[in-house]
């Protein structure tokens, strides 16, 4: 559905994309994972024909993005990072505008508007100006507008950034439903859990390069799993505990011991039993799941740092 080879893009002196090769298969969810400034939005803008790459080739839905941008546009839907709804129009009018611009025709357009309002739970708010919508409603309207022409490929640039947890869950469900209908989805995200939750394949982008790519499982195998964080009251307890676990990393200053493990019930029970047997008192226990920082540390050797260019 998407094939790019050696994409390069600079803005002035700043190199934003430094040779990006991507392949996205039809009917899959592809997540581009990376911190702010990694070049995620630039890739989406190039793939969706908003800007041109300095060099490299882009084929989207069988059309060349440079030679046949309208061919690409007819096949795609884009929901950008910033809300692309018309605040002065109502939800229904925004959708009707998209239906008209998609040349759906009068009856088909109206039916599609009604269908999408219903599907995204916007029927009650359909007659209100979009400026009165909450953040989650705006995103849903935005997505509904993207879907109006039934695109085969959808770009979602950080679809859940800034949403509250409930709206985020709802967006995830919407994305899964789309994928179930056979739509190919290209999404960007800063969150490992989001990519893990949704994507069939994940590519990790860092400073304009793909530094890792694979299925979520493949990628997670390369990351040290989560860890259990144990807090002790004094350093003698810390040292005693550190002696029990080979791969543990003691922090003398904060009296914290990090023991690797996913924190599932069985391994936790084992861990606590070991500590009990050694009669070591733990004052606090917490479980950390791997996050973007862990991925980055594993694949690039440095933590996520925001690049200068956004």
């Amino acid at each position, binding site marked *: 559905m998407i094939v790019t080879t050696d994409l390069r893009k600079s803005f002035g002196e700043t190199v934003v994309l430094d040779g990006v090769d991507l392949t996205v298969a039809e009917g899959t969810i592809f997540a581009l994972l990376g911190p702010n400034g990694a070049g995620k939005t630039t890739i989406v803008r190039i793939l969706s024909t908003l800007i041109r790459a300095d060099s490299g080739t882009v084929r989207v839905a069988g059309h060349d993005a440079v030679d046949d941008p309208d061919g690409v546009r007819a096949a795609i839907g884009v929901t950008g990072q910033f809300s*692309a709804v018309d605040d002065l129009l109502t939800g229904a009018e925004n959708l009707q505008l998209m239906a008209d611009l998609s040349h759906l025709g009068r009856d088909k357009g109206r039916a599609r508007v009604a269908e999408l309002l219903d599907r995204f739970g916007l029927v009650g708010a359909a007659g209100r100006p979009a400026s009165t919508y909450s953040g989650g409603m705006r995103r849903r309207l935005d997505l509904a507008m993207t879907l109006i022409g039934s695109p085969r490929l959808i770009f979602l640039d950080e679809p859940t950034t800034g949403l509250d947890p409930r709206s985020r869950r709802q967006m995830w469900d919407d994305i899964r439903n789309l994928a179930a209908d056979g739509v190919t989805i290209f999404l960007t995200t800063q969150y490992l859990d989001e990519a893990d939750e949704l994507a069939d394949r994940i590519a990790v982008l860092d400073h304009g390069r793909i530094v890792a790519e694979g299925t979520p499982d493949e990628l997670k195998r390369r990351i040290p799993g989560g860890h259990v964080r144990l807090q002790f009251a004094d350093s003698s307890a810390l040292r005693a505990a550190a002696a029990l676990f080979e791969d543990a990393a003691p922090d003398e200053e904060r009296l914290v011991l990090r023991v690797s493990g996913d924190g599932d019930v069985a391994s936790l029970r084992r861990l606590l039993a070991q500590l009990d047997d050694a009669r070591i008192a733990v004052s606090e226990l917490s479980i950390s799941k791997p996050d973007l920082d862990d991925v980055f540390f594993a694949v690039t050797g440095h933590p996520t740092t925001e690049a200068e260019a956004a």
Partner: protein
Amino acid sequence: MTTLGYTVSDSRTMLRRNLRRLERYPSLTLMLVGMPIVFLLLFVYVFGGQLGNGLDAALSGGHGGRAAYLNYVTPGILLMTVAAAVQGTAIVVAMDMTGGIIDRFRTMAIARSAVLTGHVLASLIQTLVSIGVVLGVAVAVGFRPSAGLLAWLGALGLLALFGFALIWLATALGLAAKSVETASNTPMFLTFLPFLGSGFVPAGSMPTGLRQFAQYQPFTPVTETLRGLLTGTAIGTNGVGALAWSIAIALASYLWARRLYARRRA
């Protein structure tokens, strides 16, 4: 549908959208149409009695004082109406370009030109409505044009043509602006140009440097032509000047706007 068919239907869709936006944002139109009305009343009732007595017989049309001045100043006020209305064009164009929605339009398979065409046509309608309102106020306070049907058509045609030119200019200024605030300021000089021409007093009464500027700037031939059509004063070569300026501004601004619009893709 053919490409041309899409161009027409997409432009119509955009026009509908922009008119609806204007309808939802009435304070903008009210502000823009209010300014020339305030100037009309101010100049006619505060300065008009005195200024009208200073007009030549050829310009005063046999009246004296305030009535003569009202006839003299109305064409200038109508052009000020056009200049004020196009500030709104720059503002709404900049609102679109700085918001997220323009990127949505650009990723859809729609006629490229439809976005700008929609803005220009909506602004033209807004401008003509503003002219109608201001003209209505002028007539209500005593403006009595001597124009026949043909002269009226000519006057409206000229206002529409000059408005079309300034709308393209304002569209380009709106595209060039980095923010909506900038876009609301850059076309403001247009509303001063009727003062620095023959809109409020004859250019001949001005000191040398100013008079030369007034004689050669585009508002002057347009004002003189409009005044001639509405109140029967001499037009002379101003008619040709008015047409030439309007077409030149429209063409240059259109090309500028088109380039600015295309460059945003970089």
